[in-house]
């Protein structure tokens, strides 16, 4: 606090002011959640602690470790192959291997469990082949595999960017010193790319810890199940808040230890970028790499899409397309507006943070939302908005509005909640780009007498353009898939594609949920394709 006041006095410009206002707004619901941890432990919390907490913790740790390791291996290896080698369909893989990210994990869970179920397509194909083998994937290993198949693109995207830009010089230097590509990879690139891998993996980690739908369906009790069980089954929100606070502290503990062990090494790079020269693969190596990419793409994208198409064939005649059109417009509208706001806010905060190092601790708190379960954030945001509404009653009356909960029943509450939850996605992207370009360009501009704002628009903004674009796309995908916040905070009669999917899936009408699912995937895939074209 003292630190904050000091920095306030010493450099209060418009950027800092905006940052402080935004930060306080974003922190307030998170702060409310953390208040829960200070409350005395109650009987229900004791019950959870004594009976099931150990199992929840054990499962969570196993899943988190498994998924982290597998996504790191998949993401790094795939990104390496499509970046440095030339083989058939390389360009296609380079883009399409991002697409699994567009399939929400809860939908992926339903798809895979159905395919392997007694009536599912895999069992049918196997029995037609005369093989009477039934594979049960509804267990912790199934969870790890499905998560890994659909979350590895977080690592893949970041590593691809990293190999193409940041490490280009090193790859080429190592090669000119006579090292082969595999040697370069293990001896030079892998050790250097730790920061990039960690930033990809930590997004995966937070997604995994937050996921509810898939683990609950697979019957694997994790920490997030515990949070919901405390609230929705035992009716005790306090214990739920306490558990989520523990979860967040746990995540930040890990990330903190990691960043400490990394020390203060900094790599800023030249921003000139010619595309990396690729090496043509021949013979069996070419076949191996191609097959590997193809298998991953098959399981993480093509097969699930085929399954969805099959369900669509079963259900398309009975679908309310008129409603769907309205829902589609809703989804698209709110998502675009929210993306615009989230990316803008993240640029403002990230730009201030890199210039005002003494405010950096705020950045850590502001990004916590991504690791807090959506439903819990919803409670924090709702509390704040209702408080605001109650204090603005006079204003509403003078405007002739006879309602009292104006803000909290509007789209604003939803957009704000998205901001709290997804700021980290955009922020980490923008921030790492800022780190890459460093501050030397900025300082040069400042020594010519330009202010922060002018420098930002003339110098910084053009340089971070790719990151702005990719942030927009990533946030777009996240919001399109988002569920708990939308369910709890939406205004009356407001449906998104995700809530439509959830409504059917929840009702065990998986075939009917395929059409909105495909639209979500289609929308996000278009976003990814635009993103990949711009990247060039």
């Amino acid at each position, binding site marked *: 606090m003292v630190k904050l006041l000091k920095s306030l006095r010493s450099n209060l410009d418009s950027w800092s002011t905006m940052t402080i206002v935004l930060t306080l707004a974003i922190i307030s619901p998170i702060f409310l959640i953390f208040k829960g941890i200070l409350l005395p432990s109650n009987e229900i919390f004791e019950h959870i602690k004594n009976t099931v907490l150990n199992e929840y913790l054990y499962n969570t740790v196993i899943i988190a470790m498994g998924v982290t390791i597998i996504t790191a291996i998949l993401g790094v290896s795939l990104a390496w192959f499509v970046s440095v080698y030339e083989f058939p369909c390389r360009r296609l893989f380079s883009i399409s291997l991002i697409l699994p990210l567009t399939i929400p994990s809860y939908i992926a869970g339903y798809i895979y469990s159905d395919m392997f179920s007694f009536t599912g397509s895999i069992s049918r194909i196997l029995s037609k082949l005369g093989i009477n083998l039934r594979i049960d994937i509804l267990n912790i290993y199934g969870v790890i595999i499905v998560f890994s198949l659909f979350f590895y693109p977080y690592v893949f995207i970041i590593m691809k960017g990293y190999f193409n830009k940041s490490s280009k010089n090193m790859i080429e230097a190592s090669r000119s010193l006579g090292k082969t590509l595999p040697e370069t990879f293990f001896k030079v690139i892998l050790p250097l790319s730790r920061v990039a891998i960690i930033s990809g993996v930590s997004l995966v980690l937070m997604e995994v810890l937050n996921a509810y739908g898939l683990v609950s369906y*697979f019957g694997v009790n994790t920490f997030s199940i515990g949070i919901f069980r405390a609230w929705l089954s035992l009716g005790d929100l306090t214990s739920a808040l306490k558990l989520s606070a523990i979860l967040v502290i746990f995540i930040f503990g890990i990330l903190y230890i990691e960043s400490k062990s990394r020390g203060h090494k900094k790599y800023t790079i030249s921003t000139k970028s010619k595309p990396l020269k690729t090496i043509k693969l021949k013979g069996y190596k070419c076949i191996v790499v191609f097959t590997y990419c193809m298998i991953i793409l098959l399981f993480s994208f093509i097969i699930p899409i085929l399954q969805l198409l099959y369900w669509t064939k079963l259900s398309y005649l009975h679908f309310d397309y008129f409603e769907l059109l309205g829902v589609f417009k809703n989804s698209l509208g709110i998502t675009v507006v929210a993306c615009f706001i989230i990316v803008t806010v993240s640029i403002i905060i990230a730009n201030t943070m890199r210039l005002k190092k003494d405010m950096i601790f705020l950045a850590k708190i502001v990004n916590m939302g991504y690791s807090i379960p959506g439903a819990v954030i919803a409670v924090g945001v709702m509390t704040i908005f209702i408080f605001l509404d109650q204090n603005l009653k006079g204003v509403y009356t003078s405007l002739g509005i006879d309602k009292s909960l104006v803000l*909290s029943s509007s789209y604003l509450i939803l957009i704000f909640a998205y901001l709290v939850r997804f700021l980290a996605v955009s922020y980490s992207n923008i921030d790492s780009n800022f780190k890459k370009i460093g501050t030397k360009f900025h300082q040069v501009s400042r020594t010519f007498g330009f202010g922060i704002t002018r420098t930002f628009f003339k110098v910084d903004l053009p340089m971070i353009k790719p990151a702005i674009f990719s942030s927009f796309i990533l946030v777009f995908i996240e919001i399109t898939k988002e569920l708990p916040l939308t369910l709890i905070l939406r205004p009356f009669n407001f449906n998104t594609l995700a809530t439509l999917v959830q409504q059917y899936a929840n009702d065990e009408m998986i075939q009917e949920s395929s059409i909105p699912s495909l639209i979500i995937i289609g929308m996000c895939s278009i976003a990814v394709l635009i993103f990949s074209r711009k990247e060039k």
Partner: protein
Amino acid sequence: MKKIILLCLFVLGISAFAKEEVNIYTERHYDADKILIKNFEKETGIKINVVKAKGDELIKKLELEGKDTPADLFITADAGKLYRAKEKGLLQPVVTEKLSENVKETLKDKDDFWYGLTYRARIIAYDPTKTDASSINKIEDLADDKWKGKILVRSSSNLYNQSLLASIIKNDGEEEATKWAKSIVENMARSPKGNDRDQAKGVVSGVGEIAIMNSYYMGRLLTSKDPYEVKVGKALKIKFLNQEDRGNHINASGAGITKYSKNKENAIKFLEYMTSVEGQKVFAELNYEYPVNEKVSPSEIVKKWGDFKADNLDLNYLGVYNEKAVKIFDEVGWK
């Protein structure tokens, strides 16, 4: 200036002017409800506005909003949640001639805070060609050693299981209920997973022999758009339990008028409509649930299963013992 602000509010989706409307918070997520709402709007000209989320999330929302809540009607898929809302002072009692006429006495709150909309039975399903279920007459019989490794049931996070155990706690006492839950865990064919349909599929595929599931999912299987699911439905037979004593466990979905409802008259009209013959037909035909209005008969598919005696337990007890039930589940290791 004022105009500009109002315009902004409009853009943000804030409607500032009251109309003939009813605002509902609902946990029910069925297509049947959509159709029912459309019919009601057409008939009366009253607009129904809907927010859908989980029961406890909506309860929290109502609590936080307090007097200012826009919600008029709170609808759940479980009587226990209605009890919870009633206990928290979020509902108000309502009595009208039509409601008393429409809703069977045992399917409403005794203090008139909520009314049932539909009810479902938690039944067992088995394959009569493989399993002889004649020795299972009571839910308690499933605890028998004989069924070791044969029972299929979903997770205890599921509300329907919680209500089932709550009813056993009320009827047999806490100690017996704990013993029962423990034996069921020992008798399980596999660790609980999937949804109700998956338990039925588990029987047909031979993972286990007896599936505990809700009656209407059986109707859904039989009318599924996936021909393989229909096959599963056809292979199974269902059995109602406790027919010689208290009756098969049922749970009601229901609705109550919120304490601070601003469109109470219209909300009551909608509640009356949902429980009327016309409304009940929609629930019964489209969702294979049992109607609370005795003038309406269940759908053809449901009728084929025959009549059954339902447990007449005051459904508020499902809420009273909900927490206890979850704790027992945790203690005995029912995941």
